């Protein structure tokens, strides 16, 4: 029983932090943040990231990677969150995970080596405008010969990407109207049979990438319009693959959020320990101190939850179902002889679907709370553009909604713990 980072992982965390402090501190972040016309991709930093091997952490050893897991990846994501770091690291790692897990060996060979070495910027395009999580949110449709039509929105760093992983709805080979209408979530115009992930070259004819403006200057987003471009299907991809990819995305986002939240809390504590009002350090006022204490508890729990979720994903086979329903929901609940008689759970049980939903909802809420408190407890200065608080606040706000916001994940948790809605 050992629930903690290894010494190697701890050393990795320190290395990332040291390198960032040395090469890309908040002044550098500000330069990217304020360069609203720029692509938000700091290329020199990118080379460093590639050289350090931080892109190859999940790439298999036989593809030149480190062959590690999501627990290791989240160590890096957490440090990047603490540094509110711009750049397409997370999107590239996630695209790599799609290829590693669901691609052919030829696809893996073609993509993972360059990707791990930093020669390739990649990203994932998994939902349409206004779309939610998973199949109902997809607004791209694939023809049976692999041509893609539709749109993806909020795609991280699509404008600088060399490779897109696009989720697309796939029509049934023979269309039986209404047969599958229930599963489409009501958004598809004709019945769809499933979901596929496709590799797309963003420079190909039939792909348009348009930057989308937003408030989080630490990350650049774009809309991707697909007009018949040929995608290369990842042969292992299906609904479960999409769910798996979204879970990994959620863990990386949650890790970024807890890293960010921990750093925001640290900075707030430091500022308020020094700032004097009414002749005393502001941090000695009990109402503020107790609120920061509660936030420390929340951040600590979110850290545990992210670590557990990463471990849960690492230690679970690919084909776990997207929805786990309790085994023994009584058919007629009112006939229940003994409501107290419930099956106890084991403390060492691991359920990746539940663990990821818990980690992401907890990390999202916590990061939003901490960064809001960061502004409040910096007083007026924390509300200025010149102070760094807003990098944390804005990134937290955006990431809290990425890969499922708190509401999405709470609904998922309810499906697992309480049972299906209908």
């Amino acid at each position, binding site marked *: 029983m050992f629930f903690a980072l290894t010494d190697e992982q701890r050393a990795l965390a320190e290395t990332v932090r040291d390198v960032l402090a040395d090469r890309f501190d908040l002044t550098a972040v500000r330069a990217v943040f304020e360069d609203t016309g720029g692509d938000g991709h700091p290329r020199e930093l990118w080379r460093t990231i590639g050289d350090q091997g931080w892109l190859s952490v999940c790439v298999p050893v036989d593809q030149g990677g480190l062959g590690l897991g999501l627990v290791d990846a989240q160590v890096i994501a957490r440090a990047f969150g603490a540094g509110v770091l711009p750049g397409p690291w997370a999107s590239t790692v996630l695209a790599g995970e799609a290829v590693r897990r669901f691609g052919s060996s030829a696809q893996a060979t073609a993509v993972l080596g360059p990707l791990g070495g930093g020669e390739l910027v990649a990203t994932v395009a998994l939902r349409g405008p206004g779309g939610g999580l998973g199949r109902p949110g997809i607004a791209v449709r694939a023809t049976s010969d692999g041509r893609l039509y539709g749109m993806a929105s909020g795609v991280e760093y699509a404008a600088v990407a060399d490779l897109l992983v696009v989720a697309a709805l796939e029509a049934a080979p023979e269309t039986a109207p209404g047969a599958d209408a229930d599963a489409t979530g009501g958004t598809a115009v004709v019945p769809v049979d499933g979901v596929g992930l496709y590799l797309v070259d963003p420079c190909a004819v039939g792909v348009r990438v348009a930057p989308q403006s937003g408030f989080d200057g630490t990350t650049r987003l774009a809309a991707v319009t697909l007009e018949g471009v040929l995608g290369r299907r990842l042969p292992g991809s299906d609904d479960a693959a999409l769910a798996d990819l979204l879970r990994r995305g959620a863990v990386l986002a949650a890790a970024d959020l807890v890293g960010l939240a921990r750093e925001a809390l640290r900075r707030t504590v430091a500022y308020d320990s020094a700032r*004097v009002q009414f002749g005393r350090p502001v941090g000695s006022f009990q109402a503020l101190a107790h609120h920061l204490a509660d936030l420390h508890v929340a951040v600590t729990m979110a850290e545990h939850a992210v670590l557990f979720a990463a471990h849960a994903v690492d230690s679970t086979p690919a084909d776990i179902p997207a929805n786990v329903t309790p085994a023994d929901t009584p058919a007629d609940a009112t006939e229940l002889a003994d409501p107290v008689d419930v099956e106890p759970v084991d403390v060492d049980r691991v359920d990746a679907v539940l663990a990821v939903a818990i980690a992401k909802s907890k990390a999202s809420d916590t990061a939003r709370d901490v960064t809001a408190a960061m502004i409040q407890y910096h007083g007026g200065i924390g509300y200025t553009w010149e102070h760094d608080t807003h990098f944390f606040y804005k990134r937290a706000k955006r990431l809290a909604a990425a890969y499922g916001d708190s509401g999405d994940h709470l609904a998922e948790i309810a499906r697992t713990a309480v049972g299906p809605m209908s």
Partner: protein
Amino acid sequence: MDLTYPPEVADFRRELRAWLAAELPAAWAAPGFWTTLGEDESFDLRRGWERRKALAGFGGIDWPTEYGGRGGSPTMAALADAELARARAPRSVNPLGLTFLAPTVMAVGTPEQKTGILAPMLRNDVIWCQGFSEPESGSDLGSVRTRGERDGDDFLVHGQKVWTTSARHADRMFALVRTDPAASRHRGLSLLLIDLRSPGVEVRPIRQLSGISEFGEVFFTDVRVPAADCVGGLGNGWATAMLLLSFERGASAMGQYTDFRRAYDQIVEVARALGRDRDPSVRQSLARRLVELECLRYHALHVLTEVERGRDLGFASSVTKLQWSQAYQGLFDTFDEVLGADVGLDHPLGEFGESGGLDLTALRRESFWTRSVTIWGGSSQIQRSIVAERVLGLPNSRLA
């Protein structure tokens, strides 16, 4: 209990509505109109509008006629706030003067001050800003360091004010200045009226996290201020400042409610546009926010009733501030929840880049603005201490 208005108030409302319908340019109500303007352009339009409003008899609703006001009741003034918000008239460019300085001058100003300050303020001939906060004293006014040295009939003012709303556009500032360096903390302060066009004044804008610069820093280097431009008596600045702040009575809560409720209804429309109005968790969150906004409305009715009866609300205005600032800020937490995955985008339904039909720029700017409302004007922490000690009568929790 009777929530209907007396005939003269109802008549006034009809009159004001008619005037607004005729005079307020329709283009100003278009979505995003104000966000597309430059700050100076926006200021000029608003300054002129408010002057026309005053000339039409809709300024200083509850001011005595002798000062150029309409001589109306607090209810009429509150209703006018609400009607202006309802019609989407731009907010005042002179709020600090109108809310704080004007009633203070009416109460304790010299006859010369009353004549020289009030009518010009109503016509926006002079825009006022407030100079209370300093870099080392956010909520702690007793620690003001800007000092005024006596020099004949004048003071020479040295120091720095910060978080000054509208600093860039203001003509004059009412400032808390330490005129007696020997006296400690709350003693030795005076409320001086400083001409910001004087030599030695430097104004630097402060950019907010929303990207806008509504605040500024003001630096004073040997700025000459006539001793006659002191309101409320030399060395009596603390008492005058407390009197001045007491005019933040919460009667404005009715205009705020109307403003916030419009933002609420806009957010509901966004929820519909994004199809999020059927999400049970979004619905519950929106319902919770409406509870707090409607409570603010009821509270505004309560405050107005008290003001009409001539009751001094005193420290209970901290209750008003806590309620409105938290209801307003919380509403925009729900805005994020409504947006879901699209929270980061200015145009979430844009088919291609910026061209989408749903422009969230203005609501997003308002969303960022709400982060400041629990900080300025006495932070929520200060307000809670006031409620605890002065309203509930708990033992001192601020200094202890």
